[in-house]
């Protein structure tokens, strides 16, 4: 019932939106319906008493069977980690709906697209069958193309270097380029994942994730399948060097698009990692852990350094999220309790923080007409509330204590230290994430200094956020602080469900 209602509610909202002609319905009905769905999630957590009840059994539902011999079922499963991810994606979707309230042209279409993406995301997170996983994955990927090409922005980009001919040829920076690039990227990734799924499913003669783990076929030790999955999921999560869709995609997309990319799309790869790669192929992952760790370290440092020199706030945020995703990959490979918990915390905390950051950037763009760090100034005097939220984002993303960022950072560094406890390089290994945090401080506060603190006599126009914008920002802030203040509640919800992710 829970799964069914979560998957059906967005469809209802699509139907209402497509019938109605009044603006107010189109603006607020999807928000209300998503909130309702969020309440159902809370009700589920409360009814099963996930916080105190340690005996919660994973809920498994099979709606109908498609191919009996290969176990292709429309089956879904809820476990403790899924509930958290579902919660996060609800928050992201609500934020995306709030960001479209001020969109003037074709509001109905963009809200329908967001609802479609939300169906894909929920299904993907809840799926317990590789086939279902792929099906919902495709549902989520297609609307993105339409979103960028219709509501996106054109950008200018300076080109030099040996490949300038190729870059000039494609008219890089335009919204069409962005939409094509992201779509082609994501579809190549999905192709690789599809091949991987097909190989595993047909050799093990089942597509159910749990029975694949049970049968433990020899194919699960194949490096080829591992690399298919790694590149596929890695591309989705912007793992270096498959990350170049992220800045272009974020930069050209509308605010709602950016929020969904950062809050959800980048998480698809991680969901794949947590759901598929780690549980079913632990041995190969163990073998190539060094590769993932080094790519993740590159992500952390490289993303942070790149973000330091961006002028466009959205590009800065895009590279920042690149850097923060690196922590998650690093932590997933540490394979101990605090590392895995840190990774899950970071998924949630990054999702919330980046939503707020992109939402603020969207508001800045709307109010001031530009996103360039060098042109913006004196927020603290002209629009104090906006400045307050923006500064809050910066503090949350550098892992300031009592925000969710600190918890994940603390757990991740603990996990890394524990992982290398026997080795002599442990100090150097914990310095990688710490150096990343230092660089985050540098670029975030460079942006804060220029946009909020700097004072200019020229721009003395007082304008600030409207009521609904403040509302959603406050909700996000409260969530971020709540996780920072009471991490033990989330830890209790995660409980012992990370067992499958410990691969060493």
């Amino acid at each position, binding site marked *: 019932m829970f799964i069914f209602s979560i998957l059906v509610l967005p469809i209802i909202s699509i139907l209402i939106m497509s019938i109605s002609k009044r603006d107010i319905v189109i603006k607020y009905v999807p928000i209300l319906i998503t909130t309702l769905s969020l309440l159902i999630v809370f009700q589920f957590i409360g009814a099963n008493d996930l916080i105190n009840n340690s005996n919660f059994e994973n809920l498994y539902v099979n709606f109908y069977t498609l191919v009996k011999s290969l176990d292709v079922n429309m089956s879904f499963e809820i476990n403790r980690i899924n509930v958290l991810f579902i919660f996060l994606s609800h928050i992201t979707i609500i934020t995306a709906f709030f960001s479209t309230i001020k969109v003037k042209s074709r509001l109905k279409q963009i809200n329908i697209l967001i609802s479609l993406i939300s169906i894909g995301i929920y299904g993907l997170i809840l799926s317990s069958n590789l086939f279902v996983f792929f099906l919902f994955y495709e549902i989520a990927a297609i609307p993105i193309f339409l979103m960028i090409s219709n509501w996106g922005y054109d950008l200018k980009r300076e080109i030099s270097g040996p490949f300038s001919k190729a870059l000039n040829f494609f008219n890089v920076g335009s919204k069409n380029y962005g939409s094509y690039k992201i779509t082609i990227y994501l579809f190549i990734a999905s192709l690789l994942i599809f091949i991987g799924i097909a190989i595993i499913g047909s050799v093990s003669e089942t597509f159910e994730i749990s029975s694949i783990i049970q049968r433990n076929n020899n194919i699960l030790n194949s490096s080829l399948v591992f690399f298919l999955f790694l590149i596929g999921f890695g591309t989705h999560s912007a793992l270096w060097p498959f990350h170049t869709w992220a800045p272009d995609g974020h930069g050209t997309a509308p605010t709602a698009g950016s929020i969904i990319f950062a809050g959800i799309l980048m998480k698809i790869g991680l969901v794949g990692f947590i759901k598929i790669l780690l549980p079913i192929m632990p041995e190969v992952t163990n073998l190539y852990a060094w590769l993932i760790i080094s790519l993740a370290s590159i992500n952390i440092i490289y993303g942070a350094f790149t973000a330091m020199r961006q002028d466009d706030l959205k590009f800065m945020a895009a590279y920042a999220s690149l850097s923060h995703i690196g922590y998650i990959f690093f932590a997933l490979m540490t394979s101990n309790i605090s590392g895995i918990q840190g990774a899950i915390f970071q998924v949630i905390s990054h999702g919330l923080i980046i939503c707020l950051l992109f939402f603020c950037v969207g508001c800045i763009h709307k109010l001031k007409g530009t996103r360039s760090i060098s042109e913006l100034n004196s927020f603290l005097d002209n629009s104090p509330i906006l400045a307050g939220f923006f500064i809050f984002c910066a503090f949350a993303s550098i892992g300031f204590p009592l925000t969710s960022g600190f918890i994940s950072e603390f757990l991740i560094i603990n996990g890394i230290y524990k992982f290398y406890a026997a080795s002599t390089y442990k100090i150097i290994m*914990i310095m990688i994430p710490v150096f990343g945090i230092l660089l985050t401080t540098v670029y975030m506060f460079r942006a804060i200094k220029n946009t909020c603190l700097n004072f200019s006599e020229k721009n003395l126009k007082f304008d600030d956020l409207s009521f609904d914008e403040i509302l959603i920002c406050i909700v996000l802030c409260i969530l971020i602080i709540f996780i920072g203040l009471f991490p033990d509640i989330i830890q209790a919800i995660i409980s012992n469900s990370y067992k499958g992710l410990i691969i060493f």
Partner: protein
Amino acid sequence: MEKNIILILLLAPLSVIICFYLKKYIFHKLEKSYLFVLPTIFYFLIFLLLLINQNDLNELSFKYIKVHDINISLSFSFNHINKLMSLVVLIVSICVLIYSSSFIKSENIDRYFRYSFFISIFISAMIFFSLSNDLLSSFIFWEFLGLCSFFLIAYYNKDKKAIFSSLMAFWITRFGDLFFLMGIIIVLLNAESLMFSQINNLYTKEYSNIQNISLLFICIGVLTKCAQFPFTIWLPRAMKGPTPVSALIHSATMVVAGVLLLFKLAPAIANYQLTQNFIFYAGLITSLTCSIHAFKEDDFKKILAYSTLSHIGFMLIPIGQNLSDLSYFHLYSHSFFKSMLFLMAGYIILTYNSTSIKDLKNKVKINSVMGFSLLIGCLSLAGVFPLTGSFSKEYIIINFISDRNVVDIGLLFISLFFTCMYSSKILFTVISFENIKFNVDKNIILLIPIVILGIFSLLGFQTKDVFDNFINPNFPKITFYELVLIQIFIVSSFGIFYFKESRVFDLSKNFFNFSSYFVEIEKIYITIYKHVFIELANFIAWFDRNIIDGIINFIPYQVSSLSLKIQSVQNGFIRNYAAILLIFIILLIILLGVGLSI
């Protein structure tokens, strides 16, 4: 009782927000200074509560997080050490709150709110920090101190330099904080707990290199927050902020927080010689170079800033000598007169609208309230008997002499000499000893806090009593003979300055050059930032957009240009098709022939 104190601490910043919104949207007639009234009352209430409860209150702990099956809770202890520190912080902060309400009254309501909000958060965080009984809660509130300092330094944001200073202060302290965080994590996995008692217990029992590294990391964190030797520069720059903020944050509370932390970890540090030496020499170098540099400066607030640094160096020296009680003694006796001097500087600067000490020549009358307080402050700085600054300093000097070699003692005395020099510089320049009439409009609200702190600065014997009764009753007393010797040294230094002022300046030129090497170390940081970080970031940003993305784009580019070439085959001319057909037939025949002949 304990919970009430915690609750009131949280209530104080909240009351500022509520008052602000009440005034902004409902009661427009309220005075702006109401924003300061409620926090002041709350903090005074806490002051009374802490003062009434002479006995040690219970510990409080809040369950926070679980790492590797180790339950970590945030715990706050109300023992006499923590309580005394909180009382000192509360006295200074109540004075500063009263002072601020008048000091910034010309600002508009939004800026007024920003100021009062951050300062009340700061005070609450500082008291939490003083009460904290484990490393994690210390770290949490330690970071809050940095946050408030960042916003309050940048308060005058029309001044580009103020913003730059705040950013620099934040970056440098954050750098240290991250070392502190790494230290905490290493400690956590070694000691399996973050409570000070357990850490001290474990670290005194066994010695290992990794524990030494963890303590070193924590010390780096402390040095950045205390602005000690390699990180000195952010504190003098932070003087761009409002003066009451300097009085509270950058002299009496935040910058000495690190000393308090080391004091709590002192038994652990006692076992590690390397860490001790590290702290000792950082303290010695800072106290030497900063006292010399303070003499060189002409800006009133900067002299005070460098003198703060030199005094913090003085507090670190005993920790390096395994006599941490003395550093705590100096910590609380230092805070009253230093914050008073800052408030005084603020008042004088506000009246005469200049910060340079040369413009302020002979502006303050000796037989006025201000003149008398300034006299007390300057004499306390130098350590004249029996003011607050004197006893702790004498204890430190005497124990230093008995423990160290000649070179160290020489350096210490040079530092002491210059301390006397800059205090006499302020004293003889600003105060006029002749009875001339000045027209200074008296602002009572600004004067009351100065007088309160001035009275506390006079209570030298009482501070000593507190040390003897609460902190270390068994400490060897200094003899009368030692006391007189030091006092002669101090008084004669004053005399040297008074009679031979120009000669002293000539002689100390070499010292100025020497100290500026140490103090102007910021150039190295700026060079590193500009030439390593920015250049590297520029390169990586270029590399990402042009090489990696170039390669990514190059593949479809090749595909599409290949398709263009193939497309040209189909150009519609019949003779081309015929030629291609002919070529294929010839190739086919040749291949057939080759195949048949084999």
